[in-house]
């Protein structure tokens, strides 16, 4: 079963920090396991791929062999089934100071929003999903996000990467470990709206 994934900008409301990220470097097989509870076919999952724009050939993901120094990298989670692959348009180079919608995050770092993916997986209740990348020549770094459609319960998974060139796969370290948080709220008085509203500066 395919699940409609409508969490683009301003769209559906199910966006939340991804449950897991792993970095894959394409330069044999490598796998990362996360054991927790049982997986069943009721749980929908997808594999999203993030990386530098232009680091994969987006038009030839169906090809299985890589010529001219290209590497083919397959990544999938869990058991059998077919993988859904959706390729989004290449975004402008996101390495800007405005990091908002994922543009500021670099390949190999944790991803916080699902926008700006190189490959956006489709959510399936299949026990496994496959994503295939046709990697451009050179050392390329990707962030793979193993995403549940809804965070209903703990689900274990195995992530495997296969590549025609040497590849490594490891969990993404948290590069921002110092965290401070506070709870607050917008009230009717302090929710002032966006900057086109007179009350913008009344916001918390």
């Amino acid at each position, binding site marked *: 079963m395919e699940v409609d994934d409508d969490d683009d*900008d*301003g769209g*559906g*409301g*199910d*966006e*939340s*920090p991804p449950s897991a990220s792993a970095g894959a470097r394409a330069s044999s097989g490598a796998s990362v396991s996360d054991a927790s509870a049982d997986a069943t076919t009721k749980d929908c999952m997808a594999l999203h791929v993030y990386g530098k724009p232009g680091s994969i050939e987006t038009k030839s993901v169906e090809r299985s062999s890589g010529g001219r120094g290209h590497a083919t990298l397959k990544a999938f989670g869990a058991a059998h089934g077919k993988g859904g692959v959706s390729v989004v348009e290449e975004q402008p180079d996101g390495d800007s*100071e*405005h*990091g*908002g*919608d994922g*543009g*500021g*995050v670099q390949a190999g770092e944790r991803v*916080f*929003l699902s926008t700006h993916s190189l490959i956006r997986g489709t959510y399936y209740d299949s026990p496994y999903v496959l994503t295939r990348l046709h990697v451009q020549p050179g050392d390329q770094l990707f962030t793979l996000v193993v995403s549940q459609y809804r965070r209903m319960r703990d689900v274990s998974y195995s992530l495997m990467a296969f590549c025609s060139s040497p590849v490594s796969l490891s969990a993404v370290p948290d*590069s*921002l*470990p*110092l*965290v*401070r*948080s*506070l*709870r*607050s*709220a*917008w*009230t*009717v008085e*302090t*929710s*002032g*709206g*966006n*900057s*086109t*509203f*007179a*009350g*913008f*500066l*009344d*916001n*918390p």
Partner: protein
Amino acid sequence: MLRMTYSKDVSAQVRLLAHDGRRVLSGQQLSDAARVCDSGPYRPCFTYALARGVEPGAYTVLASTFRPGQAFPLILEAAASPEGGDVSLAQLPEEGAGMRKMVRPGVWRLSDGSAAGCANHGKYERNPMYSLHVPAGGALVWVKMVARPAGGSASVGSSTAGGSRGGVTGGEGSKWPALNVSVFRAPEQVLGHVGEISPGSLKIGKAVSTSCEGVYLGTPHGVVTRPVRLDEGMYLLIGSTFDPWDGRFTLRCYSDRDVVLEPR
């Protein structure tokens, strides 16, 4: 990195401003405060803003909802890399916290001449005016004025501010008038509550305190006077637009002691 988590029923944005960890009070302060980073388009549930190489110091975080009047809880997180040292996060008090606050809604009307514009139009003293009585011992006072475009509530927006990025759209695109609010020492003829104020007797250049050093500023976010300690006595408070403009405004007067603010 600033991360903000909230309801999926509200769209929000977070931005980091170089404003020394102080609350941004006016349109001028907002335009002067450099935007270090923001979370881009308003989005539901979760958003984040990332900046690299942020210099040590105090910054201001502004968390806004797309539409006004939406009451929702939020969780704000500030995360930093280890080499940058620790971070701390604290909520700023509301505007004018710790001071007495008086709010006076007002209106400029072309029909009755109270939409008189600035002194260039020769009828400055016909603008809506308030008397401010400061008791013995004096008081520290500052004033903020926000225009409310005619025909709508405060929720009418425009495209004048920096909100156009990332799909922020305003209401009917009303033009915000250029504003000034000034505090004058009351002229002699006013003290006895008799007689009109003679034209030209109130000059912004001679105000005890005025917004933006007397410059009129067009902004949805209001203008403020610097806090000034006023001696005992009577003062006049005038809010004006640069050109005569039909619309409403809200005046907020903050003081550290009880003062009396009355329309004249």
